[in-house]
């Protein structure tokens, strides 16, 4: 069974629904092969979790999607665009449509919360009148319940608040797809649950599609429509939480124990 993918397909989505299509992705760092023919499809409005052990290449995968890393071979198509063939300008435009929530939040320490949220708008040349830019910032902060932090510095915020602000910054460009890199790592169980619920709320409200990288099974259970299991650089299984919980692959089962 090892090396073969186990798939559970309850409904057949149409190809037009596919917003992200990854085929036969390979990437290695020196002799360390991280992704070895990985395939993944994400459908419109779907929330897909990529489950895998630490160091299995989950973060590498989403960094390849956003263009922070260049794979050795394979293809990544996002909303019809071949991400590996686009020029720099086109890549920037695509990055406006793909939000990325970093594992370490990546809030700019030297800027206030307001400046952190303004930054992506300013850099992507979204020319909004001062008032509507401000409105957009307040709306994004309201979505994460932290409008009172607008003039605070990141250092004054708790871990959970930082995560929420980072999510607000991701939402400010109203992306079609959001990539979450370990959204609950380093948080206490209560805050983790809150963040997981926030992800599903955002998903519903903005009708975004998302890829969530995680090995926090409580978060996975809350956010996942489907789960893809990454093992040895390949997708070893895909299905809903309940389907995979009954998987006969030992390595997959271990996540659900």
């Amino acid at each position, binding site marked *: 069974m090892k090396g073969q993918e186990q798939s559970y397909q309850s409904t057949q989505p149409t190809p037009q629904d596919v917003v992200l299509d990854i085929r036969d992705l390979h990437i290695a760092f020196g002799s360390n092969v991280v992704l070895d023919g990985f395939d993944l499809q994400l459908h419109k409005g779907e929330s897909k979790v990529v489950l895998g052990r630490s160091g299995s290449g989950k973060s590498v995968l989403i*960094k390849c999607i*956003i*263009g*922070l890393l260049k794979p050795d071979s394979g293809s990544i198509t996002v909303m019809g665009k071949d991400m590996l063939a686009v020029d720099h300008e086109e890549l*920037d435009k695509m*990055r*406006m449509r*793909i939000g*990325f929530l*970093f*594992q*370490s*939040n*990546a*809030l*700019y*320490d*030297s800027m206030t919360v307001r400046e952190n949220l303004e*930054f*992506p708008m300013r*850099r*992507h*040349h979204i020319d909004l009148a001062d008032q509507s830019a401000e409105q957009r910032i307040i709306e994004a902060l309201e979505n994460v319940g932290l409008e009172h932090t607008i003039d605070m510095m990141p250092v004054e915020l708790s871990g959970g608040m930082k995560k929420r602000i980072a999510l607000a910054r991701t939402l400010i460009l109203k992306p079609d797809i959001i990539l979450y890199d370990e959204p609950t790592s380093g948080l206490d169980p209560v805050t983790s649950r809150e963040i997981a619920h926030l992800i599903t709320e955002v998903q519903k409200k903005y009708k975004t599609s998302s890829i969530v990288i995680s090995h926090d099974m409580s978060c996975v259970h809350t956010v996942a429509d489907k789960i893809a299991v990454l093992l040895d650089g390949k997708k070893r299984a895909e299905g809903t939480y309940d389907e995979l919980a009954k998987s006969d692959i030992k390595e997959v089962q271990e996540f659900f124990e």
Partner: protein
Amino acid sequence: MQLPKSLQAFLQEAGNLAAFTGRFFREAFRPRYEWREFIRQCFIIGYKSLPLIGVTGFIMGLVLTMQLRPSLVDYGVEAQLPAMVSLAIIREIGPVITALIFAGKIGSSIGAELGSMKVTEQIDAMEVSGTNPFKYLVVTRVAAATLMLPVLVILSDAISIYGGYLGVNIKANTSWSLFIMQVFDILDFSDVIPAVVKTFFFGFAVGIIGCYKGYNSKKGTEGVGASANTAVVLSSLVVFIIDLLAVQVTDLLGLN
């Protein structure tokens, strides 16, 4: 023939730094220009360093004068004190001491700031926000350091000379106009110009080494600390090496 490991590591580091410097020049002259961030960096690197540079410059001038006086008195050339102090400050002590303080303050802060930005993925976040982080972070900081250090050195020299004036007046009674006349009498363009020109190179070295170390910081808090530390040590050493080369060049050009 196998080179010793330490030599290999040194050559590797030198090669990486050269490639980083090459990238700086490629990126610096290609739009988009980050004027806003450049001005902000000039303010942080230049204006905010003023108090430290001012105080050290003043003390430097005062102490140098007080140390020189007894020797000059022994030789009966006490009247040459303003000339000697100003020459020493303008040609060597002002630029080098200011550059070393600048390396300690700015080199370490650039190394630590970029290092922590690197390990907390802020540099990646900039990239996905439609920003070229090299242009935004490195080009602006190196350009600001290159342009601000000469300005700081000129100000520090002026404050040092004033410190020297006070130093002269501790045991003598010299008017400001006489003192400053003696200073300008001895100083020549061939003293001032090479001294100022070399400070551009000092500033560039501090900026590029700080950015190189920070931008290539290793993961973890230890990595950030090491970046800040090696940025200061290396840039201080490079300041002396540039100084050594500068004195040779001015000598060859007959400006000494």
